[in-house]
């Protein structure tokens, strides 16, 4: 069996320790070791964005990060967004706008939208569409997703 490394990292604000093989992606670590199954595996090669998480404040595809690379770093996933009794405004906006159908792309879109609004609280529609270009959705046709992000921007920057 392949040797495992001990990794300590911060996930959604909490210090987490895990053992993983070098070849395990951050996505695999999140899902298979830590049972945080919000981030999804779509393509496993960087094209679909279903695995999007925020690493040290920056949006990344967790399928293209090794688990061992996250030593000492900070990861935000969809599980960290809502408060116990309240959804995050982006989550609310997705529900209000019916911006999801099967939902497999949704955690990725929401993390991507969060990274956008963290860095640019008032994006134009054009900026939203470009920012989200790395997130694919097979169901909605994107318009409702873009509308949801615009609404969430208004809500959070108001």
């Amino acid at each position, binding site marked *: 069996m*392949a*040797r495992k*490394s001990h990794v300590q990292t911060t996930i959604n604000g909490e210090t987490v320790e895990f053992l993983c*093989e*070098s*070849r395990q*992606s951050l996505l695999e670590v999140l899902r298979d070791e830590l049972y945080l199954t919000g981030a999804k595996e779509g393509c*496993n*090669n*960087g*094209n679909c*964005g279903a695995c*999007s998480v925020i*690493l040290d404040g*920056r*949006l*990344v*595809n967790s*399928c*293209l*990060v*090794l688990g*061992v*690379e996250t*030593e000492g770093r900070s990861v935000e996933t969809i599980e960290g967004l809502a408060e116990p009794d309240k959804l995050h405004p982006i989550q609310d906006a997705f529900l209000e706008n019916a911006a999801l159908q099967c939902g497999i792309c949704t955690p990725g879109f929401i993390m*991507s939208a969060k*990274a*956008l609004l963290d860095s640019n609280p008032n994006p134009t529609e054009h900026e939203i569409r*470009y*920012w*989200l*270009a*790395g*997130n694919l959705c097979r169901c909605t046709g994107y318009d409702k997703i873009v509308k949801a992000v615009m609404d969430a921007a208004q809500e959070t920057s108001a």
Partner: protein
Amino acid sequence: MQDFSYVSAQTVSEAVSLLDENGEKARILAGGTDLIVQVREARRDVGLMIDVKSIPEVNVLDYDDDAGLTLGAAVECYKIYAVDAICNAYPGLIDATKIIGGTAIQGRAGVGGNLCNASPAADCIPPLIVLGATCVIAGPNGERELPVEHFCTGPGQTALEKGEMLVSLKIPAPASNSSSFYLRFIPRNEMDIAVVGAGASVTLDAAKQTIVSARIALAAVAPTPLFAEEASELLAGREVSDAAIDEAAQAAQAIARPISDMRGTAEQRTHLVGVLTRRALNGAIQRI
């Protein structure tokens, strides 16, 4: 995915020794947006990944109006286009850093990785060539420098010898009255690989009438990105005119050796070289 070891190297000499000891099976890990995909798809046999992102020299991002840019080999795209002075000095390179993948890819992918992956279609390589970039390479026998246009030797093949790694890229400060431009043809608006790419840099005289010098480089029309040397040279001393730009575009077409594949036919690619070279030259001139 194949099993491999992982080391986060702390110094250039540590990374170089590891590369030298482990030979072919050791690979440098920068952003991993090429490497991790290649290993997962079993297109590359890797026993050791040497993460260089903790090494200070490969994280340098230092611009000075006189000295130019030192760009560490692992600096991610998003950090580069966040610096206004770099955007103003090298707009052609910025064009490329902004079209590699989408936001999440640009959070990890770097110019150094794009170069070392040595894809014929790599978007950053034509701008590096037209900006006169130099590779700073470290190896078991010390450091050496190499102009970017000599770095790629075939698809996925580079001039790096056993034990060598790219430390940084040096780009000279832009001359006055100069600018640069890069564009590619893709069937989509984003998230695609170039069918053809073209980069140009142009320096005009003070009156902005005459071309003092120009450089043109192409992607995806040969086994490596190409420096279109003759096309570049025939512009020197010419008045800015459609005729001069057409001539350069034709000379660029003459060196293209494209293949036909699922992205486009050789004929379409040759046609695109003409169109994109004209647009890149005009784009650079308009930015001056």
